[in-house]
């Protein structure tokens, strides 16, 4: 799982004692990862590969042993994860701290799994807890005052004395008011109906899931509106922009089946909490759950339908899935598929995802850097893996979904594709696209088949493997002239620098204007040339098509 192409910055903070049997473990109080400082008892997000949503936890131990950096994370639960055991209402932004002993309390993770900080304020009225100011509470990402005991699966608002061997006091609000930076608050569009929102969220995803079962074809559009609703109603606990950020990742999608299959496999193999041995037991159970619901669905093609099922089993007593439900009965809900699974429904927009226009705040950007792959990244990776195919001579009006559908129908192969014509230069008669297949073999098969004779709407397609060699755009721009050898003062140099990045209208009385006119003349000529050439191409093709049809008629 390659997260990044470059090294992520890391440095240790304050040291603590040494420990371990062989005294080869060094404990720390803090560390800096990717330019963010994390200290003991900070609340953090952790991403697991394959999951669209992050987990929230508190760092309770930091150490390094044998070159491996680890953190021990005490988990928070989102309301949806423990919905079965919840009684009464849930506050806005509320999460629950794990307590007791057993599986699901805490886990050891590699330090690099930490994906960002968040603010969690404790609002318990217990005297040991420093009461937060209203501003703190409003600005915090999450709040908690209740504890979920993992041993007997009960909720309580009484502070236990110790959790995970630590005095509970250190887990509560720190002495100083938390410095809450605004980027964190951006990510949660607070759900006004948090209280009934929770109940309400259950039905839409449920209905989405149900309908998926019944009509796989209709599943796509249906889930889309359902997903849209979910979008609106997701409880604030789920960092919405997280899932949005991961939209690009396309974890599970209905139409691009290849993606979803890959992701599902990820889920299967990494189904348990994270990377600790205690999770192994659950891994089997969750695999069992998934495969059970799979058999219930009987549709290999629509894994999305199957993955929410264990979720819905946890969420409500879905009679259809009693099998998977039984698996989860009487067991703390495994920390794998959350309501945010529904977020994957949301991500079921076909590969044609619109890019979200808002600027991600820097924290989000950190996370997104690691965990989302833009189309461009995907293309590069696919090229390395040999799964990238360059298809030409398509109709330029085809959209991504059209191409994928076409490949699916014609070759029974699934892929993600995008049309890639450059609006200025490419010949509009010849539409081009990149398609990423699941395996190298698929790609090879596709190439040979398409080249051997696939004709779409009268256009014979042709394709080849791999990425076109496109030179990286150099920093300089042809036509940007530099004044030679002018000794400019410092201030003026700054202005000149700025001049490149600002814009101004030019008046007819400058030298620039004349030069600009030259360029405009050249450009006008160029456009004409393109027009002529492309028109000629078009006519040639038409001519051919008619010859072709005549020929075939004659042949018959």
């Amino acid at each position: 799982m390659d997260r990044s192409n470059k090294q992520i910055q890391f440095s240790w903070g304050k040291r603590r004692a040494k420990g371990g049997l062989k005294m080869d473990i060094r404990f720390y109080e803090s560390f800096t990862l990717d330019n963010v400082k994390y200290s003991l008892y900070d609340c953090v997000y952790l991403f697991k590969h394959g999951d669209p949503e992050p987990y929230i936890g508190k760092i309770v131990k930091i150490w390094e042993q044998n070159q491996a950096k680890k953190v021990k994370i005490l988990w928070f639960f989102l309301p949806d994860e423990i919905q079965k055991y919840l009684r009464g209402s849930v506050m806005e932004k509320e999460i629950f701290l794990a307590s007791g002993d057993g599986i699901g309390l805490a886990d050891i993770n590699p330090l690099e799994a930490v994906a960002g900080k968040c603010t969690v304020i404790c609002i318990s009225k217990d005297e040991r807890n420093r009461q937060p100011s209203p501003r703190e509470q409003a600005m915090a990402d999450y709040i908690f005052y209740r504890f979920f005991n993992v041993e007997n699966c009960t909720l309580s608002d009484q502070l236990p004395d110790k959790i995970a061997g630590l005095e509970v006091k250190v887990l509560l609000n720190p002495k100083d008011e938390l410095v809450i930076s605004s980027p964190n608050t951006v990510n949660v569009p607070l759900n006004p109906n948090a209280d009934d929102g929770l109940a309400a969220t259950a039905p839409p995803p449920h209905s989405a899931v149900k309908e998926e079962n019944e009509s796989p074809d209709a599943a796509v559009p249906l889930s889309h509106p359902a997903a849209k609703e979910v979008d609106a109603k997701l409880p604030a606990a789920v960092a919405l922009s997280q899932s949005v950020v991961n939209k690009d990742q396309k974890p599970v999608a209905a139409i691009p089946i290849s993606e979803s299959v890959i992701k599902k496999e990820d889920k299967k193999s990494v189904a348990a909490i994270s990377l600790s041995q205690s999770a192994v037991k659950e891994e089997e159970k969750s695999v069992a759950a998934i495969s059970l619901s799979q058999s219930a669905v009987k549709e290999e093609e629509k894994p999305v339908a199957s993955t929410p099922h264990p979720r819905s089993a946890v969420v409500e007593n879905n009679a259809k899935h009693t099998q998977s439900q039984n698996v989860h009965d009487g067991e703390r809900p495994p920390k794998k598929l959350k309501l945010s699974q529904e977020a994957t429904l949301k991500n079921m927009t076909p590969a044609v995802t619109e890019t979200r226009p808002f600027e991600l705040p820097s924290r989000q950007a950190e996370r997104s850097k690691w965990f989302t792959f833009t189309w461009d990244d995907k293309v590069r990776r696919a090229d390395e893996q040999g799964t990238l195919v360059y298809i030409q001579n398509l109709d330029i009006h085809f959209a991504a979904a059209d191409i994928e559908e076409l490949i699916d129908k014609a070759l029974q192969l699934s892929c993600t594709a995008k049309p890639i014509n450059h609006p200025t230069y490419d010949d509009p008669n010849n539409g081009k696209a990149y398609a990423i297949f699941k395996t190298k073999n698929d790609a090879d098969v596709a190439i040979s088949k398409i080249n051997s004779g696939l004709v779409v709407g009268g256009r014979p397609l042709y394709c080849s493997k791999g990425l076109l060699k496109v030179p990286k755009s150099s920093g300089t721009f042809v036509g940007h002239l530099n004044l030679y050898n002018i000794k400019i003062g410092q201030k003026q140099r700054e202005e000149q620098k700025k001049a490149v990045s600002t814009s101004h209208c030019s008046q007819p009385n400058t030298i620039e204007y004349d030069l600009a006119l030259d360029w405009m003349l050249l450009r006008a000529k160029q456009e004409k040339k393109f027009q002529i050439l492309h028109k000629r191409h078009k006519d040639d093709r038409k001519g051919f098509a008619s010859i072709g049809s005549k020929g075939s008629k004659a042949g018959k």
Partner: protein
Amino acid sequence: METSKEQASTKYADFEEKVKKTIYIDQLSPQVTTPVIKAALAQCANVVNVEFIVNYTIPYDIPSAALVELDDEVQAKAAVELMTDFPFIIGGMPRPVKATYAKAEMFRDRPPCPGLKKDFRWIKQGDGEYETMKKLKNLAKKQESENMALIKNLLDEEKELAKQQQEALDGNGKKYEMLEAVMSNGTIRKLAHHYGVSLDD
């Protein structure tokens, strides 16, 4: 199935709305970034989104281009007009940018156009049409290379022009410098004296 068709058409209708509000700016310097475009267009339009076109197909160093989404169609029209009237030199150097209305096929992430025919056929050797199709394929390839050749040609022309302009500019610069130098170090007085020309003219 109806819903999916309706859905698709509404999606496409929305997309078409977006297309109308979007303009396509070309011939941008690679140094131009989103804030620059926003600032440039601030006079006449509010920029909602800027998406730079990634070059996947042209194996040459081409200028940047971007799809800029504005608030509405009116603004789009105003922006295009602004850029055509004034060689709106985004970048402070002589090469002007070009702005046109966007077209649906410029967007990489477009929703499928409902009603687009996607029928396909398999044609094998021995079919009557095979030869024709083969010729058509070759024609397409030929056209492609013609296109590329044209592009290369055009880019070379641009380089030529740039070189020309740079030389002219350099020449002018030198001339002015020389003049200035002559003025400043008094040579001109001697020259004037020599030629009998009065300096005050």
